[in-house]
Every structure is written in structure tokens, then in C-alpha cells.
């Protein structure tokens, strides 16, 4: 049985039909074609599916889509402006070599964005804590932390 689901995605309204067992990740990737949120594990362990729900980072692979009704979802597409200008975090990741294969990058950026929205001057420990749920098997952690700190220090 399918249910109607309406929610806000990156500032626009979305209307889809979903199964109760569909996750937000399923809906993003397979119904709305927002594929920036990745499916790395489907068990909440890797962080590649991280999106913002009402401004807070969550695992979209663990979020039952129906529970998102009427709420606000943001993916990495929401970071750049409508004319394509990159967010400071995106620019910093790019310039500091914080992306290698790029698969963890959208999730990392959303975790970093949420951190800076909540705390514009985090300590290094707070930066590390904020991304501690995002795995990077290419091993770009050092550059990722550097990139985030570069944004913190520039503002």
C-alpha cells in the first residue's frame, strides 16, 4: 500500500507516493532523483546518506520517509546559491584536497554545515566530533578537518 507524502526539500515542495518501509534515502534517490545523498551501508554506520532534517543532521537511510511529512529536508544541493556560487565549505573542501573519490563528501558537507549553523566558532575537537559519524575510506580526514577550520577561521 502506498501513502501520499509531502515535505519541503531544498526550499521546494515535494509530493510523492511511498511505501511505509521506504526510507527518506529511498525517496530522495529513487523517486525524486536527488542522488547526492549516497547509499553506503543502509544501516546508519557510514554517514554517506547524511542530510539535514529541520536543520539537524540525520541518517536518511534510517529515516522512514513517512515520518518526514510536513518537515524540512536539505541535501548538499542546498549549499550552493541558485546562480551556482559555492558555499564557503564547498570551496574550502575543493581547495584543501578534502575530496578524493568524493563519495563521502556530500555527507561530510552536511555534517559540517550543521555544525557551523549551530556554532560558528567550533574548536578542533568540536569539528572532529561533528564529523565523527562520517567515514572516509580514502583517508582524507586531515584535509577535511583543515577545510572546515579554514572556513571557521575566515569568518
Amino acid at each position, binding site marked *: 500500500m502506498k501513502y501520499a507524502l509531502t515535505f519541503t526539500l531544498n526550499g521546494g515542495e515535494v509530493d510523492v507516493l511511498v511505501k511505509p518501509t521506504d526510507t527518506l534515502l529511498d525517496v530522495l534517490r529513487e523517486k525524486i532523483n536527488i542522488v547526492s545523498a549516497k547509499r553506503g551501508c543502509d544501516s546508519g554506520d557510514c554517514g554517506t546518506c547524511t542530510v539535514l532534517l529541520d536543520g539537524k543532521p540525520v541518517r536518511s537511510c534510517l529515516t522512514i520517509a513517512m515520518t518526514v511529512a510536513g518537515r524540512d529536508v536539505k*541535501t548538499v544541493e542546498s549549499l550552493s546559491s541558485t546562480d551556482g556560487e559555492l558555499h564557503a565549505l564547498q570551496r574550502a573542501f575543493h581547495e584543501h*584536497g578534502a575530496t578524493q573519490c568524493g563519495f563521502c563528501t556530500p555527507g561530510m558537507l552536511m555534517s559540517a554545515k550543521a555544525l557551523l549553523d549551530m556554532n560558528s566558532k567550533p574548536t578542533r575537537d568540536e569539528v572532529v566530533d561533528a564529523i565523527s559519524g562520517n567515514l572516509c575510506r580514502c583517508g582524507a580526514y586531515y584535509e577535511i578537518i583543515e577545510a572546515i577550520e579554514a572556513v571557521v577561521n575566515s569568518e
Partner: protein
Amino acid sequence: MLKYVGKQIPRYEGIGHVTGRTTYVDDITLPGMLYTKVLRSPVHKGVIRRLDVSPAENTHGVAAVAVAKDIPGQNAVWAADQPVLVERNIRYKGECIAAVAAVDEDTAMEAVERIKLDIEEQTPVFDPIEAMKPDAPKVRPEGNLWQFNSGDHRVLRKGNVEKGFSESDTVVEKTILNKMNDHAPMEPHVSVAYVDESDRLKIHTVSQAFHFHLGQLCAIFNLAANRVCMVGGTVGGGFGGKNEIHCDHIAGLLALKTRKPVKYRMTRKEDMLYSTKRGAFVFDYKCGVKKNGRLMACKVRAIHDVGAYQTLGEYAIQKQCLYITGPYVCPNVWYDGYAVYTNKPVASSMRGFNIINVTHASEIMMNLMAEAIGMDPWEIRFINAWRDGDTGPTMWKVTAAGLIETMQKAAEVGGIELPAHLMAMSSRGR
């Protein structure tokens, strides 16, 4: 003036990565695309007595079910004796037996669960040492030891180890175990295949090695190379795990059968349990050293646990020969390398492919020898580090050696003050 050398240049695909626009294979959705779930062996070893896929075929929403007899060409991947889909003999838990293409994954999974499978279970062997015994259960009919042209193990001899041991002041022995590792790239294995408008099989692949795989795939599909087109190069991490075909063959098979686009995506659990691994190793190292720190002899028995099929397991043993003693000169070397079958997932390449293993072992031995003769662990390494002109275990001449300078720099960066005589050493000569 150098425009790019020595500068930090942002990678050209970086913008795609940070905007989420980089397209990975799982990001591809095509009209009418089908999704795949596979039936995997629930047992480690056995013989399939009955396989009835008709309940899956008759499930609403299922487009096709593929089994061994549906393979147009050779039912072989990775190794010549390893099937794409098992017809009869199961060699490891998780081996693919059938593949279902359906309108969505839930339907495909439902269909897989309806397949009737009867297996006569047999006794598996997991421990490579046990597998080497003559009465061990046979993983393959030819026996559990891979045959090199030198017999059941690869032989390497340099100098005379027994003479080397007799000239040593101390001999140290150790058994060193390395476990199986998984690459666990952030992107699990996945493939999207379809027959295009020119009747070519197009495969969107995560392969790290198109040219290795094209030939294998052509043999499986019985298609000429100009009828198979692999599209890829955007990989969410591979580290050697995507050097073997994991999904392209099954997605391709179902695409040929259904004439529709087919996606086959491995779950993280499947990827972690059943994809190729860094194989486990058992090393028996015996090293002889003089009081002055000079390494005199190194005798090694290496056992590579290659799992249920031998793909690059033999290659691992051959390649390992280059670095048995690490980057240290040793006049007398004896190496016996075995590739042993067990009823476990298949060993193949992974970052530092088996060189990591002998490096790990030889560094442990350097520390143990240093301890045994009461020498500083830096010093013993400086003394034995390759210089230009030294010969490696396979008699190749070392050129452009650099360990000494690397250690000197590492010590400096690490805030460690090395004695002057070590800081004065050079890779250019002894």
C-alpha cells in the same frame, strides 16, 4: 617557470564532488530499469541437488531469473574454475547461484526467497594449515595446494641460509599471522547494464581495471569485444577490491536476457561478507643476525589463504618474493610460498597487495633482532637498509635507494635526535 609542478592543484572533478553532481554508478536510473537480488549459498560447502526457480519466475513483477545454463559463453569469472552462477559444487558461503531481475528490490528479494534450493552439505575447511594436510576436505578436486611450475609452492633461494645461520650470533624465530581484510570503500559494488541502440551491451561499471575485465566479460557473454562497451572511471573508492568483476557479469547477463536496463547493487553486508578480500597469511620467519647488526640469513615459509578460488593468489606469492626481507639487504634468503585453498571468500588485490604483509612481518623481525642483540631499533635498520648496488632477494640490483634519507627525515619531523653516525649515513653506499 613551473606552472603546475610543486603546486597544490585542486582536482578537476572536485567541483562535481562538492556539489554532489559527480555521477556514480548507483546514481544512474534508466527508464524501465530492473533491480537485481541474488540467491546465495547458505552453506560453506556442498552440492546442489535441486534448484527450482519457477516460483521466482512466477512472482508478479519479476522479469527474469538467471541460472548457470543461461550463460551464453563460459560460466567462469575470476578463476577459470570459478562459476558466475554455481551449477553444482558450492565452495564458499555466499556464492551466487541464481539472479532475479524485478521491478524493484523488494520484489526481487521476495522472489529470491521463493526459490527452492536443496543442497547436500559437505564438510568445509577454514584453516589453511588444516587445509594443507593430506586428509583435509578438498576445496577443489585437484587438491588444496595451488601448483606453481616449481611444484606445490613457489621456491626462492639466494645464497645459503644454513651457512648464514651458522655465521649469525643470534637467530630469532617467529610465527606471524595476518588476518583477512576488506577494502570497504564507501561505494559498495554496483553495475548498470543494458543493450543499446546498436545492439551492444553497455555496462556502467565501477571496475578499476576495464581491460582486465573486458576479456572475461566477453567470454562470459560470448560477445566479441566490439559488442561490449564498458563505461566508467568514476569509482567511490576501490583499493583493489574493484579489480575483480563483482556485478558487471550478472547485470549484463540479466540485461541480455530481459533486453532491459538492469541494476545490480550489492548491499554493504554482501560486499563485506562475499566480495574479494586481502587474503590471510601465515608466516614462519627465521632470521639470523650478527652482533654488529648485520642481517645474515632469512628463512620464510609463507602460506597465503586464497579462499575458495585462486585468482590473484598465486601472483601475490610471486610478487611477495621481492620484499621478503623488507627494504633491507640480506645475503642468504630461503622462501617457500604456498597458495592454499579454503572454503572462504576469495583473496585478491588490496592496497599494497601482499607487500604490506611481508613488510609487516619483516619489520617485526627487525625489532625482535634488535632486542635480541641489544641494539637500538633505528640503528639496526640503518645498518641493513638497502644501498644502491645491493641485491634484493630475487637478485635484482637496487637503484635509487631511499630508506636511509626517509628515516632521517622522519626522525627530524618526529622530533627524534638520531646519533651523528646514523645521520651521516647515505643510500649511495656503505
